[in-house]
């Protein structure tokens, strides 16, 4: 065991020295290449951090077969923007307070970042953030989707997301009896 561990560490040192670059190259499922700051990638994604530490980053483009180019472009864009943004005082001080959710509110630039996305791009980005272990990006994207559900009746939510009402007549009647208020629409 001792020997193995020593060897692993040596290997890692060598690889890090070899790939002594500031960026890593990521390859989308459809073969497009994207460069992202190594520091930001390691800081924002547990999966990429693990790959960088484990030396499994490919200089010619690390394959991310589960992520399409549009979503990967957004991931990279987010990482780069995050690297450039100075955390606001609000973000640092927003510790879990009494009556608020323990999720940090998105910052202004994060809001703008997700606001410009189409629904599809947003859902893809949620999946990509989840796959890459990007907690903050997952938080921001899920928050955006949750905002689209706020203050709406089930009918209105169906319209927003284009979801089919697949309840049977009997089920719908039971729900409307018991939770009539939920369908209140002003």
């Amino acid at each position, binding site marked *: 065991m001792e020997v193995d561990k020593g060897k692993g560490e040596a290997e890692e040192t060598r690889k890090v020295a070899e790939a002594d670059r500031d960026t890593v190259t990521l390859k989308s499922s459809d073969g497009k290449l994207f460069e992202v700051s190594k520091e930001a990638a390691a800081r924002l994604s547990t999966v990429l951090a693990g790959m960088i530490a484990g030396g499994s980053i490919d200089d010619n483009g690390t394959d991310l077969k589960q992520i399409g180019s549009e979503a990967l472009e957004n991931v990279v864009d987010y990482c780069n923007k995050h690297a450039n943004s100075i955390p606001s005082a609000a973000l640092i001080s927003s510790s879990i307070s*009494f009556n608020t*959710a323990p999720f940090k509110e998105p910052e202004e630039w994060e809001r703008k970042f997700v606001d410009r996305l*189409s629904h599809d791009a947003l859902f893809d980005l949620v999946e990509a953030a989840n796959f890459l272990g990007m907690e903050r990006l997952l938080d921001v994207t899920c928050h955006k989707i949750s905002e689209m559900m706020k203050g709406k009746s*089930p009918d209105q*939510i169906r319209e927003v997301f284009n*979801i089919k009402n697949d309840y049977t007549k009997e*089920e719908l009647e039971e729900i409307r009896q018991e939770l009539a208020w939920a369908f209140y629409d002003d």
Partner: protein
Amino acid sequence: MPHVAPRKPATDEPASDAAAETRISSLGDDLLLEVFLRLPSLATLVRAALTCRAWRGAVASSPAFRRRFRAVHPPPLLGFFVEAPHDGHSPNVPASPPFVPTCTRDRDLAAAVRGGDCFLTSLHGGLQGSGGGGELSCWDIVDCSGGYVLLVNADEELFTVVNPLTRCNETASFDLCTNPDDSVVQLHPRLVCVDEDRISFLAVLLAHDESRVQARFFSLDTREWSMGPWVKVPEPVRSADHSNWIRDQGSMQANGFLYWVYDDRRHMVSLDTATMEISVFELPQCLLESYVKNVGETKGGATCIVYAEMLNVGVLMHTRDDDGVGGWVQDRAVTMATELERVLPGKFDEHSQMVGVWAVQDGYAYVATSADPFNMNALCWFMSLCLETMKLEKLFRMPNNVFDVHPYIMRWPRLLNS
């Protein structure tokens, strides 16, 4: 209803309807629940979860999600049922307890108040037959628990349990326990939610004679009254004009225990609703001077007593020693003078007093302050007091003479259980 177009950000690719539908459903339950976890309140979650079978299934089939959601979102307070005195119980005056909604900008919470039946109109519809000739009945609120309300019709000695948020006629009524012995006093029942998953309730009342107490409980499932053993309790200091030596007021309930205070304020009776075991605590000296107090839970779920005396508010925490013997320890006593000056500048003087601690729930005490405490027709301010920060927030004004105020809190609906 006007057609609300889906908010589509400017994009070159027009997403086809079929594609859009599959996209959000392709997220999978885990990610959908991550989205749901970030909704602002239970009211929003209920509306979102009812959108389609898959979404409701995702919520209902995950007890872990339910725990996480509750940990992040305290159950929402929708408003207060106020128990105010009214003239003439006989002949029947049509009446339901007034409901004061909390001010909210949350459209989903507002929908619950507006779309629910907070005026309890179902009571009058359901009982027209038994009231005789379509006469409306007069209902007083007794207790609120687990999203349900317990009411009494004093004329008919009839109790009923209703859920103000449903429109279905699921009212469960019952008669008071038969009490053949005249020397035994039965206090008002309290409502206890014994199983939130199955929405199962007990009505529990305390009966007492000269020196003993007894728990009597009615299961809304089996529809039968049962009685616990008579328990000898410490002798009260009796007042000459009162045969009732236990106060029949408030609905003190915390962590599955019900509490009643002796009229002499020296002892408190507690009842474990899981075992129906009765015990009696001696109350600390600091409560002797305090008329108004209530038991409830802090944010962290600890049982506490909040009491008020003049303009001071004190908090006692419940403790257990190594032998499991319980007791109360004073945690703090704070003057509210500065806080009152902040929320009601210039409205208070040396006569002002805290006149009520109406409820303690989820880390908040609901208190009232009056500048004219001995004038029953004067108004007092009803406020919430955050037990963490000891900050007041004013809610509404009401007469000094209200009997009780019951916070109404929305609970996890049955339809979102598996």
